[in-house]
């Protein structure tokens, strides 16, 4: 087959909707040797024949400029989309097929770029829905319905939020394919993915969170070695999903994969500004204390309020409450055990202070009913 015929056959394959599998099949027909496309993790996207041996483990450490890997040598041609290598064309056979292989890699880049543009639109929609939920603009059944329209059914199985941070801009993050397998079969992202601010946000089933977080970190580190990924706790309603997001955002501040700490309202405020559902989240964060007091007839909420009002003075608070100092210390420890935050730390005091302010105590001790604020 001459060069012109080769180009026409490759173009026709893509035009007919055969995708990268079609390009690999035509290349095989042209050269009489196997051809394939692989992503940068060494995961096969298409191969002709489908069962062929490729140096996949060597390709996991492929670097720009490497044109051949394995024994016998397999030719590697980068598939470059908007100046970034997104995939690799693998080919065997002689140098007389170089032009066809380069043309096939260019066609593959066009195909990936076309699909990416469509995916970016879906991600914008997902970003808007998640942002509305995380900022409290969309709540309750409206939030559930909008999540369901994106394939997220909040139920007893639970979902977690994963947040990824790197130095790419929001528009760059939105255009990145992340998973070429799902991009190429036209199904979009395998798990709901959005861009909020300069962060990647993924909503995943709880059981998949550790694995997906690790894969996301590998992906982000290919652009920025100082990337961080945070995993939020399991959520089964829109409000706890918002809390999972803020906790994941906090956990993503370090390097590597970070697990969420108990929600700290101070950090949430820092992350969300005035758009966050602060009163509702404060209510949820303090709910263990209200539940404890209701169940036992205890006074943890009152103790917390008085302790804050007396500027965290053990002697002043115990005098005001007419209790022994050790009783006060015991109650403060119980508060820490129930909420995960200790009054002995600055972060803990900030957390409880914000909760107290947003819920209206210490002036109105115990009056907020957390149950009425849920969801």
């Amino acid at each position, binding site marked *: 087959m001459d060069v012109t015929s080769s180009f026409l056959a490759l173009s026709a394959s893509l035009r007919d909707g055969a995708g990268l*599998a079609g390009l690999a099949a035509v290349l095989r027909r042209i050269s009489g040797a196997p051809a394939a496309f692989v992503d940068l*993790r*060494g*995961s*096969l*996207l*298409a*191969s002709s*024949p*489908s*069962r*062929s*041996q490729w140096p*996949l483990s060597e390709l996991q450490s492929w670097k720009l400029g490497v044109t051949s890997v394995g024994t016998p040598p397999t030719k590697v041609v980068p598939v470059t989309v908007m100046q970034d290598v997104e995939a690799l064309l693998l080919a065997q056979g002689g140098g007389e097929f170089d032009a066809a292989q380069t043309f096939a890699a260019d066609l593959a880049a066009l195909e990936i770029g076309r699909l990416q543009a469509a995916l970016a639109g879906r991600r914008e929609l997902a970003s808007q829905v998640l942002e509305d939920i995380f900022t409290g603009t969309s709540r309750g059944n409206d939030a559930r319905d909008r999540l369901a329209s994106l*394939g997220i*059914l909040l*139920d*007893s*199985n639970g979902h977690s939020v994963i947040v990824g941070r790197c130095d790419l801009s929001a528009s760059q993050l939105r255009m990145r394919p992340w*998973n070429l*397998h*799902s991009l190429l*079969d036209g*199904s979009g992202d*395998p*798990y709901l993915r959005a861009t909020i601010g300069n962060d990647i946000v993924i909503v*995943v*089933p709880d*059981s*998949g969170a*550790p*694995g*997906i977080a*690790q*894969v996301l970190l590998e992906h982000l580190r290919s652009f920025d070695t100082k990337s961080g990924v945070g995993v939020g706790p399991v959520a089964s309603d829109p409000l706890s999903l918002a809390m999972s997001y803020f906790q994941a955002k906090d956990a993503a501040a370090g390097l590597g994969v970070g697990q969420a700490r108990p929600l700290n309202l101070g950090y949430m405020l820092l992350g969300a500004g005035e758009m966050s559902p602060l009163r509702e989240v404060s209510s949820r964060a303090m709910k263990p204390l209200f539940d404890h007091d209701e169940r036992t007839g205890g006074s943890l909420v009152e103790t917390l309020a008085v302790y804050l009002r007396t500027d965290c003075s053990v002697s002043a608070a115990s005098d005001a409450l007419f209790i022994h100092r050790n009783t006060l210390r015991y109650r403060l420890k119980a508060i820490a055990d129930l909420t995960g935050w200790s009054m002995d730390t600055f972060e803990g005091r900030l957390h409880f202070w914000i909760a107290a302010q947003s819920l209206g105590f210490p002036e109105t001790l115990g009056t907020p009913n957390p149950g009425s604020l849920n969801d």
Partner: protein
Amino acid sequence: MTRNGRAEFGGVGVVQLSTPDVAASRAFYLALSDDGTSERDRSRDRLAQFEFLATEQPASWLVEFTVSNVGSAVDSCVALGATVVDESPTTVALVDPRGVRFALTEPARAADPSIHPGSVYIADLYTRDVEWAVGFYAEALDLELKVLPDDPVDYMQFLAQDRHVLGVLDVTSFLDDESPDQWLPYLSFADVDAAIARATALGARVVGPATASPTGRYAIIRDPQGVLVGLWDSFSLLS
């Protein structure tokens, strides 16, 4: 365990995964089997057919086959050169003459026979000696052989009661020499491409991309622990 009468082959029963990280493997297969369909039975244990065992060795599968008469089937295997390596009242683990592990078990130990996302309905023997393997397992397990043309090499399909139950695949063309002969389970999914997307997002890598075959669309992946496993549209058998 009775030894009288003919052993009738049932299908794939429990699949055991020996893995260096039980929690990670369990999480991977649990998430992979969640295809997000709202209709699914949420109370069902999606991993009921799986057993996870801790090992310091590389991850590997042990596939159990259900037979109506385990004793008789074991005798057939041993007579052809297989070795018994473990035995319980209901299940016998064997190694075939080429060193491949498998197990025979009573039907009562089989999992829910219905096909649902992530269940294992068939298994393939990945081998470099197809002729020998076909001869051994056809006789040992009393299976009927059907040759299905495929690219790059034909697929050897084993039938029991006219039903596709097992297969033999020549791996010479796509696996390196370090990959041992082994029985590989195929997880059932109505949408193999969506399963690939989930699997790769969860850390797996594709070794054999999604491909149409005479028995339905399938793919071969390495899970995050590096063990090979198949994905297959076994739902196509029901239509």
